[in-house]
């Protein structure tokens, strides 16, 4: 038995619910999924992130049964999915295009899956009402899909895919058309449903904040491959590549030549600039080109010379005011632009820096992370 405090993905004995075993999917000449292996565990909330066209929907469609892998196998609870048609899989999918049945009312759309499995009438009515309630669509139950708004349609699609209480629920950008408030509420609702029902969720999203909020693990994809699969905090704090660091959140990437020192590396990155020191246990060879990735919020901005080892001086080029935080774009004498973020604890009129000010930027030895690919 795995101990309670070990997450299943860290437990080598845990049995995954879904296993992608070296799956490749080609459309003609084009490779949409490239030799991908992945385990997803029961009751996980698994988020897929990646640029448009990287193969997220294709991955989902293979799970749902609408595409079959060109090579490799997909297992659900240890069973090879290949011979099982979509209608026999314990998997429901919310389509990116919603795919609502235009000739049926909202009520009948949601009841569609339940009717196919011959749910008793009373139970069916109760379940559909529950779904209508959850997605706040009670008032629209007897309308047709073309008589409601885009966001409402999205909620119908969500309710329809939830109605059958599937073992695995695939959500392809489920909340994109909702306003921020409703989106957040629905996110918490989804997490709630997930906790209550123990359904495993795989969700595609373009919104990293959403992925960070809801997911137990996040997979970052690029061109049909997984670049990194980890918990949200690891993805954010310890990206394994420049690609992931750049894709998730805002980041300063400083390219330079590494020099090994006892507790990490020194990065020689520009003439007339001090070397930057970073603690790391990554094995980097002397003279290797690598990147130092530092999140803007880990950089302190001040007018007097800081005490720390990593510091650079520059002038403020631009200020992005976002209400709660401001991002300062600081140009160094070498031409590099570095972003630093501070939270706006003071009112805007009393802000300490403005355009053209000369400021110091500094960060600790552990703030950055060294990336060699």
């Amino acid at each position, binding site marked *: 038995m795995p101990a309670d405090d070990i997450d299943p993905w860290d437990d080598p004995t845990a049995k995954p619910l879904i296993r992608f075993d070296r799956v490749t999917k080609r459309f003609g000449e084009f490779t949409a999924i490239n030799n991908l292996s992945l385990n997803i565990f029961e009751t996980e909330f698994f988020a897929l992130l990646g640029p448009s066209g990287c193969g997220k929907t294709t991955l989902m469609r293979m799970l749902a049964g609408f595409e079959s892998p060109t090579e490799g196998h997909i297992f659900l609870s240890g069973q090879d999915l290949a011979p099982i048609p979509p209608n026999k899989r314990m998997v429901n999918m919310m389509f990116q295009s919603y795919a609502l049945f235009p000739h049926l009312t909202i009520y009948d759309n949601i009841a569609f899956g339940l009717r196919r499995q011959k749910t008793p009438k009373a139970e069916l009515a109760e379940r559909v009402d529950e779904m209508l309630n959850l997605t706040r669509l009670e008032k629209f139950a*007897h309308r047709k899909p073309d008589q409601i708004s885009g966001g409402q349609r999205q909620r119908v699609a969500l309710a329809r895919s939830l109605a059958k209480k599937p073992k695995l629920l695939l959500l392809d950008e489920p909340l994109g058309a909702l306003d921020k408030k409703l989106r957040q509420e629905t996110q918490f609702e989804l997490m709630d449903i997930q906790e209550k029902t123990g359904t495993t969720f795989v969700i595609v999203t373009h919104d990293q904040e959403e992925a960070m909020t809801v997911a137990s693990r996040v997979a970052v994809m690029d061109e049909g491959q997984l670049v990194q699969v980890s918990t949200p905090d690891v993805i954010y704090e310890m990206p394994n590549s420049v690609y992931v660091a750049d894709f998730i959140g805002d980041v300063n990437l400083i390219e330079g030549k590494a020099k090994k020192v006892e507790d990490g590396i020194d990065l020689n990155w520009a003439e007339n600039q001090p070397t930057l020191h970073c603690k790391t246990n990554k094995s980097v060879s002397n003279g290797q080109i690598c990147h130092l990735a530092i999140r803007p919020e880990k950089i302190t901005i001040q007018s007097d010379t800081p005490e720390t080892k990593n510091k650079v001086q520059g002038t403020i080029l631009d200020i992005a005011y976002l209400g709660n935080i401001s991002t300062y774009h600081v140009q160094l004498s070498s031409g590099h632009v570095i972003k630093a973020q501070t939270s706006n604890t003071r009112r805007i009129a009393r802000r300490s820096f403005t355009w053209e000010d000369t400021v110091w930027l500094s960060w600790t030895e552990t703030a950055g992370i060294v990336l060699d690919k």
Partner: protein
Amino acid sequence: MRRYFLIITPYFWLISLFVIPFLIVIRISLSDPEISIPPYTPILSLEEGWSGLLQFLRQLDLDNYIFLTQDALYWKAYLSSLRIAAFSTIIALFVGFPIAYGMAKVQRKWQTTLLILIILPFWTSFLIRVYSWIGILSTEGYLNQVLLGLGIINQPLTLLNTPFAVYVGITYTYLPFMVLPIYASLEKLDYSLLEAAEDLGCSQISAFWLITVPLCRAGILAGCFLVFIPTLGEIIIPSLLGGSNTLMIGKVLWEEFFNNRDWPVASAVAVILLIILIIPIVLFQRNEQKQQDLGTR
């Protein structure tokens, strides 16, 4: 002003090309035959003013309609026409739907070609196409020769001048009218809906019945009406392929009109034919309206 003009235009056509001619036909159907020009009586003459009009109205009667009920020929012809039209529609649906389905499923670059192939027979005159079926179906025709040659039969079959030949002719002629509207509605169908249905537990067959068929209902109904309505009054195909033992109301009408020169009875036949057609269309419209109202309740 513009708006009224837009509304008036279709009503103008409808009234001048349908309502007025129909009223004339009804008026003739209420008169009596007469050897004269025009071959019926009474004739309305406005010279006598009001009394002339009253005189005219008094002479109109339902005699022709009563006559139609007394001679079994007529209702037999109506029934037989209805049966032939209904069967032909069903056959055309069963043949046409798979054709439309195949056309909609095939790669896009082939669709235009197939569409042209469906319309291509219209380049040839309708009469010539029906005549060519005589060449195929007659006792010495191509079909019998092929079957004899293959040894499937050893006596030529009598195909021409049978109901079979009529069904073949009608189905062949009206098939494009079935295929085109169904194709148009299938082509618009979003195939992710079928995937969604399967995802929710439908087999492919039940997804077809629950999603595909209801969503191209409009196309199917349009196709059925486009085949049923002209078939009901069809005259050339039964005359050429059905011989004397195929009774159809179009033929009866033709004979009343041209052979007997009995315009009033011919008009009565036409009026009843129209009523037979209008009733199902009105019922259908009502039903459609009801469904719409349910949706917006």
